[in-house]
């Protein structure tokens, strides 16, 4: 299947390739620095050369995603460095987790090498990757806002959102009790949108919002769980998160519990940069194949003891 796609290189690729050519960069950098000074010409020249050196030594990747992956033989995947059990740095200093294993299987299926990068989450979700990365198998929920800057070729698992509180919490028994409370969410996460009553997942009916005036506390999710474990209301009253990460945190911290029914089912998608439909097709077909032959189910059972990839499609 991979070869089949190879035979038809992306048509939309060419204009992008020209736009980001290395020569273009030199011009821009030169122009930026040029207007400085008559007397200090030498100084300015040195500065220009220094800047150019730095600019040109940087990897400049051009062209559409599929072409790039095809030519380099490498697929650049971005994910989160601390989102256990989906992606984290393990005892051997290697990135590990469900997302990492899925990425490995994906790259193996394409017959290319896998390269992982772990930039800040905001960097990933803000889109405009400019060819830095090819794919993000990173437990992202397909919200409306993200769809403006990113493309979601395929769903790969579904895990519900849940409400977690401290085990000594007596007041909050379900999501209806969080009005006016301090609720932790991952920064830039779909759960933040949910608390702000602004979650729109394309193709999914909007969830109910039986609460008002919630104080959303965005932060690193694992730090939030740690804060919640300090006691009910010490720093946080509750956390809205994915069921799998909540379970992992409860197993590690022992003092937390999930309350109430699941809040809403949340699909998680594979993410690509906008503008390369052929790459998106390759990605979705590869994932379909991995689902069909049980590869995804196997990885899911390894990490969660159950198959969360079933209703992903």
């Amino acid at each position, binding site marked *: 299947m991979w070869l089949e796609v190879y035979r038809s290189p992306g048509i939309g690729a060419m204009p992008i390739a020209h736009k*980001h050519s290395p020569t273009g960069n030199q011009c821009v950098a030169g122009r930026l620095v040029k207007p*400085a*000074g008559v007397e200090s010409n030498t100084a300015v020249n040195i500065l220009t050369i220094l800047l150019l050196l*730095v*600019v040109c030594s940087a990897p400049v990747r051009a062209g559409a995603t599929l072409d790039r992956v095809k030519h380099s033989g490498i697929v650049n995947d971005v994910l989160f460095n*601390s989102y256990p059990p989906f992606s984290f740095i393990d005892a051997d200093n290697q990135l590990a987790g469900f997302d990492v294993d899925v990425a490995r299987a994906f790259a193996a299926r394409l017959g290319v090498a896998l390269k992982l990068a772990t930039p800040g989450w905001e*960097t990933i979700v803000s889109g405009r990757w400019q060819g830095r990365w090819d794919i993000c198998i990173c437990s992202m929920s397909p919200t409306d806002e993200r769809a403006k800057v990113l493309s979601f070729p395929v769903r790969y698992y579904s895990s519900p959102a849940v409400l977690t509180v401290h085990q000594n919490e007596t007041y909050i028994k379900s999501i209806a009790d969080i009005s006016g409370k301090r609720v932790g969410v991952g920064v830039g996460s779909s759960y933040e949108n949910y608390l702000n009553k602004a979650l729109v997942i394309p193709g999914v009916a909007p969830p109910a919002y039986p609460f008002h005036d919630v104080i959303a506390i965005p932060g690193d999710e694992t730090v939030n769980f740690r804060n919640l474990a300090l006691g009910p209301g010490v720093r946080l009253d509750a956390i809205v998160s994915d069921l799998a990460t909540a379970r992992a945190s409860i197993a*590690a911290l022992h003092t937390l519990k999930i309350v109430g029914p699941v809040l809403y089912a949340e699909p998680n998608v594979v993410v690509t940069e906008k503008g390369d439909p052929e790459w998106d097709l390759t990605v979705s077909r590869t994932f379909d194949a991995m689902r069909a032959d049980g590869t995804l189910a196997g990885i899911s059972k390894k990490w969660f003891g159950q198959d969360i990839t079933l209703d992903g499609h």
Partner: protein
Amino acid sequence: MAIEAPHGASAHELAAAPTGERDPPRRYFREKVWLTWAVLVVLLCGGCYELHLDFTYVALKLPFLLGIRLSPDGFIQGAVLTVFVTGVSMFFALSVALLTALGRLSKNPLAFAVATFYASLFRGTPLMVQVLIIYLALPQIGIVLGALSSGLIALSLNYGAYLAETIRSGIMAVPAGQREAAMALGLPRWVIAWKVTGPQALRLIIPPAGALFVSMLKDSSLVSLMGLWELNFLAQSYARSTYRYMEMLIAAALIYWLLSIVFELIQFRLERRFGRGVAALGRP
């Protein structure tokens, strides 16, 4: 060389160094300092002990934090990457700062304007914002920089702006008489800069510049925003993935501190080297 006047008024002014003869003798000063340090270190260790840290976990992660091993994709990581980023940025910051300082001292309005504009812009905006702008905004005009290049540029430009002020003040603090005397002796311009003004300015520049570089060492952790596996990034990743915050944060803090001490020692050496002339004048 400092050019001394025949009845060296300036030399006597400079001679009022802390080691001057009028000071009362400091008995066992050094011993008392070491003793105080020892007490403070013991107190700090006692405080850390109270946190009930799991030191076996720290030992397990130490090779990675120190960067003795490479990252999964074969790049340097941990403290080694931190030192690398700081060292390279230091070099570029020094180059940029020197140019900017000269621009600020220049009589050319354009050079002066560019230098002041740059210094104002980069001193007046947060480093974190600069890092993200260079990493995220430049691609929109066609310059796609790698994470490492972006970090190096942001750190160099930011600290270059601060350092420029330090260098400028150092140069300006050298008495004008020194340059005038050198000119009267008929020394060429580059000799005056290299042998008269430069060394005397350096003596004044080194202490604040050293402080800036120590600060830069710690600010280099901002490049973790772009996914570089430097010391702070690793410490936080391990901490979050395993819920062992205190162990990892304290280990990282200690490594940063040790690195800073190395920087301070280098600064001390340089200070002594360039303070030789003044120290010699200070003796009776």
